[in-house]
């Protein structure tokens, strides 16, 4: 590792906790960020000579807070005096502080910082950049690249988001147990959104968006460090690790997405899978099933199978039934139908799928699966119709190619399709 690399790694790691604590002192995102920046600059000057302090996070908070207080005092001469309440804990001595800064103290701070980014007025397109900027410390340029927009546009989006959250104040009260659980759920959903922004990227974008997956996994690790006994947080981290473990098998040489069944499983990241599997087992011991745990458990069944044929579909069916209970949704039922088809045959699966026609009429996978089931049942004409609908809704070349393959199996469907494709 080159010399400043370890300092940068330390600063990146310390960032969420340090900025969160500084935000508690100053109750102002910009001031907290500025104070942290200044502390980082001083760290870059002082650490190479003196070595890192024993507690890097406490050092950064202490230095940042002193800088911030100076700034407040300086501007106070020009503007009105700050409210003393807003500068709480000013008299703490450093030793005091280091002692107090154990996990439980960081916990509400970090949760608050993440929670602020999930402000209900903010659409996901603003929540995610705000979290990446403030919590993860990615540069506006990096975030803009991941979202495929210009730096100026992203800067504007983040500024707007900051302005919206600045007007909220209620987050600063210490949450009770119920609030805390609710916040944790909302924050977990936001972290999963960050992951999906990266994961659901189509072929050509995957490369630039992968950092979002890595960042989401880091945030989940942070949450789990703060809430080590929360099965849903274990599930969330496990789910992302197990999905991300397939990253290098998900793209072919031309950059197209490779479907799960067709992936070269030797390319899966065993290290990430091992960690994910352990976390799934740990979570399920709590017997408090939740959506992330169940999705992770399903991903774990795939991760344990060395080939698609070995997949334990009965187990997947069972897990989807639990997921249907904790998070009923037509998409969950549709996914369960895939398992049912393998276990009980196409007829049983089709019975599960048909009632989903109205909520999922615009969903690629609905028509794709339905077509496949109809084909297995020998109802070719209906199958062709379903496949044609699916192709019109395909998002990636891989999805479309997969359906075309099915149509080929049906025989005469192909020429008609080629004509319709030329139009597109």
């Amino acid at each position, binding site marked *: *590792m080159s010399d400043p690399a*370890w300092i940068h*790694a330390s600063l990146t*790691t310390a960032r969420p906790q340090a900025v969160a604590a500084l935000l508690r002192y100053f109750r102002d995102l910009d001031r907290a960020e500025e104070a942290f920046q200044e502390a980082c600059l001083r760290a870059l000057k002082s650490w190479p000579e003196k070595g890192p302090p024993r507690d890097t996070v406490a050092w950064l908070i202490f230095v940042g807070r002193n800088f911030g207080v100076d700034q407040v005092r300086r501007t106070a001469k020009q503007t009105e005096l700050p409210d003393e309440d807003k500068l709480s804990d000013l008299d703490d001595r450093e030793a005091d502080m280091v002692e107090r800064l154990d*996990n439980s103290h960081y916990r509400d701070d970090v949760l608050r910082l993440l929670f602020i980014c999930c402000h209900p007025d903010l659409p996901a397109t603003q929540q995610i950049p705000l979290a990446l900027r403030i919590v993860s410390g990615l540069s506006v340029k990096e975030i803009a690249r991941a979202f495929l927009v210009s730096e100026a546009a992203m800067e504007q989006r983040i500024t707007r988001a900051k302005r919206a959250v600045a007007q909220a104040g209620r987050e600063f009260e210490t949450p009770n147990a119920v609030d805390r659980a609710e916040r944790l759920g909302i924050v977990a959903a936001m972290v999963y959104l960050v992951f999906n922004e990266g994961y659901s990227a189509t072929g050509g974008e995957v490369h630039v968006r992968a950092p979002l997956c890595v960042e989401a996994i880091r945030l989940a690790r*942070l949450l789990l460090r703060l809430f*080590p*006994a929360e099965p849903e947080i274990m599930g969330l981290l496990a789910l992302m690790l197990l999905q991300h473990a397939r990253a290098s098998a998900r793209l072919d040489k031309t950059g197209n997405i490779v479907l799960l069944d067709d992936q070269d499983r030797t390319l899966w990241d065993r290290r990430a899978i091992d960690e994910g599997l352990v976390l799934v087992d740990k979570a399920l011991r709590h017997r408090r099933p939740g959506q992330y745990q169940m999705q992770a458990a399903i991903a774990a069944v795939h991760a344990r199978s060395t080939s698609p044929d070995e997949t334990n579909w009965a187990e997947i069916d069972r897990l989807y039934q639990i997921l249907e209970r904790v998070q009923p949704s037509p998409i969950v039922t549709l996914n369960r139908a895939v398992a049912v088809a393998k276990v009980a045959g196409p007829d049983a699966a089709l019975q599960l799928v048909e009632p989903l026609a109205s909520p999922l009429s615009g969903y690629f996978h609905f028509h794709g699966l339905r077509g496949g089931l109809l084909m297995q049942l020998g109802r070719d004409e209906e199958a062709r119709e379903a496949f044609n609908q699916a192709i019109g809704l395909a998002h990636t070349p891989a999805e479309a190619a997969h359906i075309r393959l099915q149509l080929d199996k049906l025989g005469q469907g192909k020429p008609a399709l080629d004509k319709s494709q030329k139009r597109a």
Partner: protein
Amino acid sequence: MQYAILCYDREEIVEGWTQAEDDAVIAKHRAVEHDLAKKGRLGPTLRLLPTHAAMTVRSGDQPLVLDGPFAETKEQLLGLWIIDADSHEEALETAKKLASHKKTGALEVRPLRYFAAQKQVA
């Protein structure tokens, strides 16, 4: 004398390394291990998954199972080497070589009292 060299570091930093950074440190470790192995002085080496994968079982008549590592510490046990050394000094020399491969964390050098690589079943 056999020694355990226990590697402690802040796992959130180590987990945050890029693959290239991780590979670079491990490659240097491997070189030291290779030299030890050539002399027949290297025992098992292992690297642990992060502490959030850990569970703790508290002793007692009805052992209690808890999530997480035994102790909440700023630096966590990440892995260990078992080596053979003629003296404390020699064990420390090996630890110093390993410690020079990164800037954070620490290595604890601890003599072994008992070691069985694999139990023979009679």
